[in-house]
């Protein structure tokens, strides 16, 4: 955990890059069309090959689709949902936090009380509820995840803004006639970016887990579009006969989340030494 780029961190970064590349390049590196079914090739074990269809390195699912291709495309879904929902909550949370920290008074009370209320409902429960009721779709998923997870950013941004706003150079900028928006964006935001980045990284891992979890419950990415969660959910029915359907996507998910978490710890140690290791 020492703040220098150790061998372990290099491996982690490499793995994350590999995952991202797999997600990005899925259409080109997948051996099969992830949606192409073949009812005659259902539930074939890893390594199965047929003369006509070729090799299925990780086997096939319950509709005879290639599991490896579906996992590669599933990485895509994980990344896109996580990136978008983290962006949504980062933007919403930061803006609210900045506003609360800058204007203080009633604005701050209002915003921070709402943050308290949001934090007093377990986010996953709220997400499950909302998605189940609105009906699952990609947009719903991103919005619900994004809009249930912003309070953590608000808290961090609020505390950091309060701290930075008290520093002399801000007063100087104010006296020089800069308006609030300019000060917030040009002077304060860059100074609170570090802690926000730390939160965003740890949230990134959580979002990947949430997406998979909701898809597992049938509330996330909808079949036939591949997502790690929905592949596992379908695979659960066949857990005794087709273990590969749950083991491989889960392994991908687990590895990616481990990498993101390690990365998050490392970033935190570098950028936010006060809370080292937390």
């Amino acid at each position, binding site marked *: 955990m020492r703040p220098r780029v150790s061998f372990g961190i290099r491996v982690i970064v490499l793995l994350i890059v590999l995952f991202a590349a797999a997600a990005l390049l899925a259409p080109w590196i997948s051996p099969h069309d992830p949606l192409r079914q073949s009812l005659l090739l259902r539930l074939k074990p890893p390594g199965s090959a047929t003369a006509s269809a070729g090799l299925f390195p990780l086997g096939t699912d319950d509709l005879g689709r290639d599991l490896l291709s579906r996992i590669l495309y599933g990485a895509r879904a994980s990344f896109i949902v996580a990136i978008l929902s983290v962006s949504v909550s980062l933007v919403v949370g930061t803006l609210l936090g900045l506003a609360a920290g800058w204007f203080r008074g009633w604005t701050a009370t209002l915003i921070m009380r709402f943050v308290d209320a949001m934090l007093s409902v*377990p986010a996953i429960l709220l997400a499950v509820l909302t998605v189940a009721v609105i009906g699952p779709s990609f947009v719903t998923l991103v919005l619900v995840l994004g809009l249930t997870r912003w309070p953590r950013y608000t808290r961090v941004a609020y505390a950091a803004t309060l701290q930075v706003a008290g520093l002399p150079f801000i007063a100087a900028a104010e006296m020089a006639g800069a308006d609030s928006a300019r000060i917030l964006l040009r002077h304060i935001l860059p100074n609170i970016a570090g802690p926000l980045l730390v939160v965003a990284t740890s949230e990134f891992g959580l979002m990947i887990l949430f997406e998979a979890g909701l898809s597992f*419950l049938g509330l996330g990415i909808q079949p036939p579009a591949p997502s790690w969660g929905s592949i*596992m959910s379908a695979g659960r029915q066949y857990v005794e006969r087709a273990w590969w359907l*749950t083991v491989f996507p889960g392994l991908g998910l687990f590895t990616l989340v*481990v990498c993101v978490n390690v990365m998050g710890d490392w970033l935190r140690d570098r950028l936010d030494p006060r809370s080292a290791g937390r």
Partner: protein
Amino acid sequence: MRRYIARRLLQAAIATFLVITIVFFVMRLSGDPTLLLVPEGATAEQIAALRHALGFDRPLAVQYLGYLGDLAHFDLGQSLVQRAPVWLIVASRLPYTMALAAGALVFALVTGIPAGIAMAVWRGGVTERLLSALVLAGQSLPTFWSGILFILLFGVSLHWLPTSGADGPASLVMPSVVLGALAMATFARMTRISVLEELGRDYVTAARARGLSMGAAVVRHVLRNAAIPVVTVVALEVGNLLAGAVIVETVFAWPGIGQLAMQSIFARDFLVVQAIVLFVSMVYIALNLATDLAYSAIDPRIRGMA
């Protein structure tokens, strides 16, 4: 102190009210459960008649005020699907979730805290490396995946434990471990930091200078001081355990309120869902409050101020 508690209680009340309101309206975003209740051949008139009888043709504001009015009389209402008092339905499932949450908490505490202590005391060694790998795993394992793997390994292959359901104490083991893994990781990390911080303090050296062994110093002095930040996370984790129960209870077919919540959400059994969310949020809020009060139990400095 009393004023502080009063203020916190007021905050809690506002938060609860917001939660109730959000959930009430979210649940009604996609319409009412009438369509789910009628037989397939029902005509439009028959559907309208049942909707009227159930009161779902009233304006939302009227339904909302009615619900608040009932709540004010501590009336959670009657389940549309089960036609029984909501409190009875929730209360009959609650013991299962409590058993599961307690099992998970016990698992997380008895593994996480010693692991955290060990990582701090034997820092830099093989022990720490092994344990931090374990902690990282606990933190990164999706419960629905580890749940299935456990079922596959201990239930299907080894036949050690029942695969799912609530069938004897053995069936509590797997869901508790799976649900508790994340909390275990959190406790271990928190304990490690906290103990490390305390180990560096003079009073530890002073205690050892008086002839105490390292172990005795840790047990007699370090743990209690390190406990304060850990207590906070323990309380918060209990709330997260209740929320996490939604997925774990689904995977293990555990008949607690998490499973009930999922069933009721899909059946649009509004009042049951609202009652569960209300309950979980209140537990969450109460735990937060309890944490603050727990500080004073541990720390005489705060007790002095009370």
